[in-house]
């Protein structure tokens, strides 16, 4: 159980990078970008095929980031220059990427079984003492089995936080402010001499670069890239954003981005726990995801409506009591 949750946290931190990308388009740019399902695989595929052809894992991961950026830019261009509806541009790109990804990978699945990855290279230089120290804590907390290594968790916390701080900083620069205003009030920022078309292309590009990075890391941790591994990725990203905002708030950019990371981890934990229920199978995961998003969207409204109703009833009751007394 504890080990399963450890795995959930581990992959949650990696998926958090994808969720930050989704946050950038959905929340900041107000651009519902469905490219994600495709660009996640593009990132995984580019990294996997490069590594299996002997490219160093770090370079392969950087190539995946560039590929994701390009895919996002094309979606942005379809929308801004081609004047295609935002949702549709993402869907078109997602579909096109399915074929492109197959071309990149040359087969539906690329295995990294005996190839080095960023994580295997890190594990080589990772002092074993750290693992045994944390595993000691882990077992004293009551778990029988301890994780194989802590290197992934530590490395990913650093990478994901670095991306979070990069996002926070970027969104506060002059360019970043204009990007946020593009999602908030296009008319206004255009009257303040900002090229909203370029900003949208840039924003969707950065978002998909993050998604592709996430895909590249997932491929390396799982040891394979599969052409269908991106299906429903956008919903997972949305679930992370919505859960995070509901649980941790969104008052400032810095809070919102850390909330998204938290949301991604919580999402993984919820799915892990859900799959342990007897009547649910692995194949039900997409349905569980959809259900989580539904609950996260609907529940806050019901809770608020109940609160309002309670407040009204109390006021009325108090007023009635007053009249009776008089």
């Amino acid at each position, binding site marked *: 159980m504890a080990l399963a949750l450890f795995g959930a946290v581990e992959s949650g931190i990696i998926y958090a990078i994808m969720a930050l990308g989704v946050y950038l388009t959905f929340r900041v740019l107000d651009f519902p970008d469905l490219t994600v399902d495709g660009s996640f695989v593009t990132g995984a595929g580019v990294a996997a095929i490069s590594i299996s052809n002997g490219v160093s894992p770090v370079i392969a991961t950087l190539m995946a980031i560039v590929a994701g950026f390009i895919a996002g830019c094309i979606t942005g261009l379809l929308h801004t220059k081609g004047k295609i509806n935002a949702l549709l541009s993402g869907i078109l790109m997602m579909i096109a990427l399915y074929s492109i990804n197959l071309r990149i990978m040359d087969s539906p699945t690329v295995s990294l079984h005996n190839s080095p990855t960023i994580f295997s290279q890190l594990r080589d230089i990772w002092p074993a003492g750290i693992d045994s120290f944390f595993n000691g804590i882990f077992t004293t907390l009551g778990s029988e089995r301890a994780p194989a290594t802590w290197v992934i968790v530590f490395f990913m916390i650093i990478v994901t936080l670095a991306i979070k701080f990069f996002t926070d900083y970027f969104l506060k*620069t002059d360019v970043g402010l204009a990007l946020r205003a593009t999602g908030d*009030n296009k008319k206004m920022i255009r009257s303040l*001499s900002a090229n909203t078309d370029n900003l949208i292309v840039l924003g969707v590009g950065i978002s998909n670069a993050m998604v592709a990075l996430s895909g590249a890391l997932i491929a390396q941790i799982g040891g394979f890239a599969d052409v269908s591994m991106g299906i429903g990725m956008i919903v997972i990203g949305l679930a992370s954003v919505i859960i995070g905002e509901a649980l941790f708030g969104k008052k400032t950019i810095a809070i919102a981005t850390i909330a998204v990371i938290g949301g991604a981890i919580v999402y993984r934990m919820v799915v892990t726990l859900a799959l342990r229920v007897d009547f649910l199978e692995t194949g039900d995961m997409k349905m569980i995801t959809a259900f989580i998003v539904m609950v996260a969207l609907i529940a806050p409204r019901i809770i608020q409506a109940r609160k309002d109703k309670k407040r009204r009833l109390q006021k009325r009751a108090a007023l009635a009591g007053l009249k009776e007394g008089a």
Partner: protein
Amino acid sequence: MLHVKDVAITFNEGTPDEKKALQGINLELHKGEFVTVIGSNGAGKSTLMNVISGNLVPDIGEVIISEKDVTMLPEFKRSAYIGRVFQDPMAGTAPSMTIEENLAMAYSRIRKRKLKPGVTKQRKVEFKEHLRTLNLGLEDRLNAKVGLLSGGERQALSLLMATFTNPNILLLDEHTAALDPARAELITNLTKKVVDEHGLTTLMVTHNMQQALDLGNRLIMMDKGQIILDINGDKKQNLTIEDLLKEFQRIRGEQFESDRAVLG
């Protein structure tokens, strides 16, 4: 400073809905001139504003700002020369961003946007100073989201954002029309003060004749896509609403009652 040269634009040309929105408009604004534009609905005031701001490209004619032909320049590029305040108080600011962030974006209107922080200590001091001139206490609320401000406060902020970088041209598009009388007066007074202080070349569209008479040193009246009246100097100072209505009737020779109701 601003020269609109032989500009004409027709909407839906060749269809039953054809509308000659502007017909051979010639308008030259000298530096520091404050021109108020009046006219009934459909006279072409907004179209003129849109042609100047770059929202619309005229069929024929040129728009020249500070000796530079900007007729074909897209809106966002032209914005480097133009400060604008819209009629809708929600249109001129970004609601989910803070006051200081909105000001930082306005600050960058005339500069190239870079990957450096938009709100710096130095800029904050400057922003506070500018906000203080509004007398609304906004200088103590730099971190407040603009969406929390009232319509009047937002419009005052929009006005500040449009002007504190000294634009070559200031365009005011009925910017007090959506406010209650007290707020409208506040914004009108602020406009007067700001334009005087910076000596801004200003074009203001209004439906309010009294406002058109009170503000500025030149008045033009538009009708059916043409400028039918252009008054400046002393003559403008002594002008009354009655004069304007008489003048309009004389030129157009039509019953003016319906327009009078609109313009009053």
